[in-house]
């Protein structure tokens, strides 16, 4: 039996096991049959084993260049380096679906390992829902997109991986992104479990929160990697284009952000219960919608897989069943839930509610902008385009109040915040922020718009720093104790929040500075020409041919100097990949904390002319670092062990917290 055969059979087995996993424990939970519920774990593990085997077989077939397999022949080549041959596993539609299912099983296995204290019926329901999702996708694979299909006549060599994908980005971006997309399946399953069982209490939210945070952190990382990759790969110096596929990843991110904030309130105060459940459903639904948009051919994008309406129909059916089914369940069961807790309009709950309002309106606007051209076409009202100018005009004003709230919100305590103290703290932070902004604005000679952006970012930083200062200085631990000055001054969730909010603040500031200060020029240059961009001088000194493992290229040598001193040497290339005869530009970037120098080579002209794009991008690296900080903040908060404790001891712990110094109650306790 060849690996491809084994992989296919493993999928077939997984198909039946997932159905069993989906139905048996679910039925058992509804009927309270303990033996049936106990089956969930072993079934889930068997399912994982089968899917892992199947995926390993695909990797093996690619690794050994088994060109009898259609997928390998379509997406790989013997001249391709090993790491790209393996990454080709998710370079095409069929393989990426298998990756999706593989990652679903990774999360499922992680869940089985990490949640021993959940009640049996909840765990059974959650694993069952994950099994049903797996069943849906494995069906999709087996019926329309089988990566193990054999060629009628084996070929001697493959068609090669698309040159655009032959890059380190291809190795890391899709898996990380899928970890985020698919991670929201866990919270989705928890939401369904909550709707199927008796009305949940706050412990449900405490269980969901770490999984939501983990998925969110991965999604943040995945989007970051995609943007980072597009920046150096696509050759025009941009890093976010509001492309349909980018939006497809951004919408679950926005809803996921709302979810992690809503779950905080539900876990702490048992408010927004049905809202949190709804958000869990919406977040995963947007993940599925993203999957649909990329593969159905309904939207135009550089990212889109080769479209096939039959596949689009299957995913749409999947979407209708999963999303339609869960929203129907929600409409049926959620109205019976009652919330008893009250809160003032001046409280942390209210701040989180407004946070959710803005994030959801933003997500809705992105969805509107992305699908509007489709609707206009459907209604036969012509053809329009909705691009970056629309999204920027709508999104930025929406985010501004939310970012101001980010500074203010953590100052408020639950139920009823103390107006005088918040006013005092707010005024202090505002005064410091204004002063710092004035300094920054003068230093950079910023425009009014840029000053506003700087003010917002600085406000967020100052408020977060203030929060940390109060936390570190205000605990009950005695001054002399070293503990006071360490991370132990507050739970991990607090530090995670601090890191993530700091990341957000730095992101706003770096984008503001970048947009305000960057220089960009498209020029046609000959060897010896130079161009002045701001303080930098770019000189094209040489263009020579080079050869790579599977391409030929023209490589330019560009000297970048400032004040007469050479600061960087850049070697942009214009490549021609030999197998597919596909030209591609490989930008050259000199990175530093203060600025990126960017050069890309375009079309050659007569007389040794070359079209070139030259850019100076101040603080570009901070965009990546700030997003990384956000992702790490989320990951840190996800590992807060207090959510793992059983409900009773957590109640005791939170009682102690409340009885302690009033300052500690302002932390993001779970």
């Amino acid at each position: 039996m060849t690996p491809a055969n084994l992989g296919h059979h493993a999928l077939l087995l997984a198909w039946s096991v997932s159905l069993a996993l989906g139905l048996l424990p679910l039925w058992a939970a509804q009927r309270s049959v303990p033996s049936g519920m106990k089956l969930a774990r072993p079934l889930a593990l068997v399912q994982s084993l089968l899917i892992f085997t199947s995926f390993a077989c695909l990797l093996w077939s690619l690794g050994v260049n088994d060109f009898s397999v259609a997928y390998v022949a379509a997406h790989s080549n013997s001249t391709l380096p090993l790491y790209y041959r393996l990454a080709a596993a998710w370079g095409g539609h069929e393989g990426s679906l298998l990756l999706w299912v593989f990652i679903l099983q990774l999360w499922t296995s992680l869940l089985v390992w990490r949640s021993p204290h959940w009640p049996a019926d909840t765990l059974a329901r959650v694993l069952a829902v994950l099994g049903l999702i797996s069943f849906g996708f494995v069906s999709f694979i087996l019926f329309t997109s089988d990566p193990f299909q054999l060629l009628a006549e084996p070929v001697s060599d493959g068609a090669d991986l698309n040159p655009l994908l032959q890059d380190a980005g291809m190795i890391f971006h899709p898996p990380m992104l899928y970890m985020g997309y698919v991670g929201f399946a866990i919270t989705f399953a928890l939401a369904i479990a909550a709707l199927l069982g008796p009305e949940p209490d706050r412990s449900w939210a405490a269980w969901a929160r770490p999984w939501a945070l983990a998925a969110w952190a991965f999604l943040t990382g995945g989007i970051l990697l995609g943007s980072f990759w597009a920046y150096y790969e696509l050759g025009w110096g941009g890093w976010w284009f509001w492309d349909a596929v980018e939006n497809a990843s951004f919408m679950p991110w926005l809803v996921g952000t709302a979810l992690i904030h809503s779950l905080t309130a539900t876990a702490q105060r048992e408010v927004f219960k049905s809202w949190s459940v709804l958000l869990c459903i919406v977040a995963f639904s947007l993940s599925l919608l993203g999957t649909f948009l990329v593969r159905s051919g309904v939207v135009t994008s550089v990212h889109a897989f080769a479209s096939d309406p039959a596949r689009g129909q299957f995913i749409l059916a999947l979407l209708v069943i999963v999303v339609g089914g869960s929203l129907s369940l929600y409409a049926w069961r959620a109205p019976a839930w009652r919330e008893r807790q009250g809160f003032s309009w001046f409280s942390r709950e209210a701040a989180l509610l407004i946070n959710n309002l803005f994030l959801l309106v933003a997500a809705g606007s992105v969805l509107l902008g992305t699908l509007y051209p489709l609707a206009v076409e459907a209604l036969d009202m012509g053809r329009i385009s909705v691009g970056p100018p629309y999204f920027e005009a709508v999104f930025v004003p929406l985010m501004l109040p939310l970012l101001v709230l980010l500074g203010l919100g953590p100052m408020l305590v639950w139920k009823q915040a103390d107006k005088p103290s918040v006013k005092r703290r707010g005024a202090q932070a505002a005064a410091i922020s204004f002063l710092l902004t004035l300094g920054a604005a003068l230093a950079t000679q910023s425009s009014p718009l840029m000053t506003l952006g700087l003010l917002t970012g600085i406000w967020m930083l100052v408020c977060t720093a203030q929060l940390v200062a109060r936390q570190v200085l205000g605990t009950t631990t005695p001054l002399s104790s070293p503990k006071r000055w360490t991370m132990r001054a507050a739970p991990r969730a607090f530090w995670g929040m601090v890191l993530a909010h700091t990341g957000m603040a730095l992101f706003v500031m770096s984008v503001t500075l970048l947009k305000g200060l960057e220089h960009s020029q498209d020029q046609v240059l000959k060897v010896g020409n130079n161009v002045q961009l701001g303080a930098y001088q770019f000189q094209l000194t040489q263009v020579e041919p080079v050869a790579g493992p599977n391409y030929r290229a023209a490589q330019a040598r560009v000297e970048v100097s400032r004040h007469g001193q050479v600061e960087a040497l850049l070697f942009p290339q214009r490549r021609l990949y030999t197998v597919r005869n596909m030209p591609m530009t490989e930008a050259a970037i000199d990175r530093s904390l203060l600025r990126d120098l960017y050069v890309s080579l375009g079309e050659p002209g007569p007389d040794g002319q070359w079209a070139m794009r030259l850019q100076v991008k101040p603080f570009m690296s901070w965009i990546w670092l700030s997003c990384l900080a956000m992702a790490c903040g989320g990951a840190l908060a996800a590992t807060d062990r207090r959510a793992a404790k059983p409900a009773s001891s957590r109640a005791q712990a939170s009682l102690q917290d409340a009885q302690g110094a009033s300052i500690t109650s302002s932390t993001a306790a779970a």
Partner: protein
Amino acid sequence: MMMTRHALPLACFVTLAGLLGTQLGKAPPPLPSALLNHPAPSFTAPQLDRTKAVFTPQTMQGQVWLLNVWASWCASCREEHPLLLDIQQRHGIAIVGLSYEDEAQQGASWLDAQGNPYTSTPQDPDGRIGMELGVYGVPETFVVDKQGRIRMRHAGPLTPEAWQQTILPLIKELAHG
């Protein structure tokens, strides 16, 4: 009241799914011409055959005619060329061939080799006339009515189906009107 509030997300989703479902499987239609029902832009251009007079669309007033945008470097133009020859021979419809971003020599020898269905061959070496017409790809074919208004644009090579089902009926309708 509460029932409807909780059913709102479901209602939104159903609308969304409906939209996606109806649009699935439809290839994005080619861009409709912005000049639909507008007069064709006026221009004067020398012809490939220098012995002939300069061409202007004014001269075509009073008849229904086709404007075909082509080039010798365009592979799809070769595909549609036999159909154009057939249209000209069988139906006697005037076809004006705009030589788009092409060298006169190349264009002329291409027509010599492939056959010349065109009553006139105005030259557009820098693509300015194409820009006036809103041309974004080659080949494209415009149907112009007796009053000189553009009534249809077919983007991409002409196919027998498009000719039979859409263009010929339109021409007949315009000819009678």
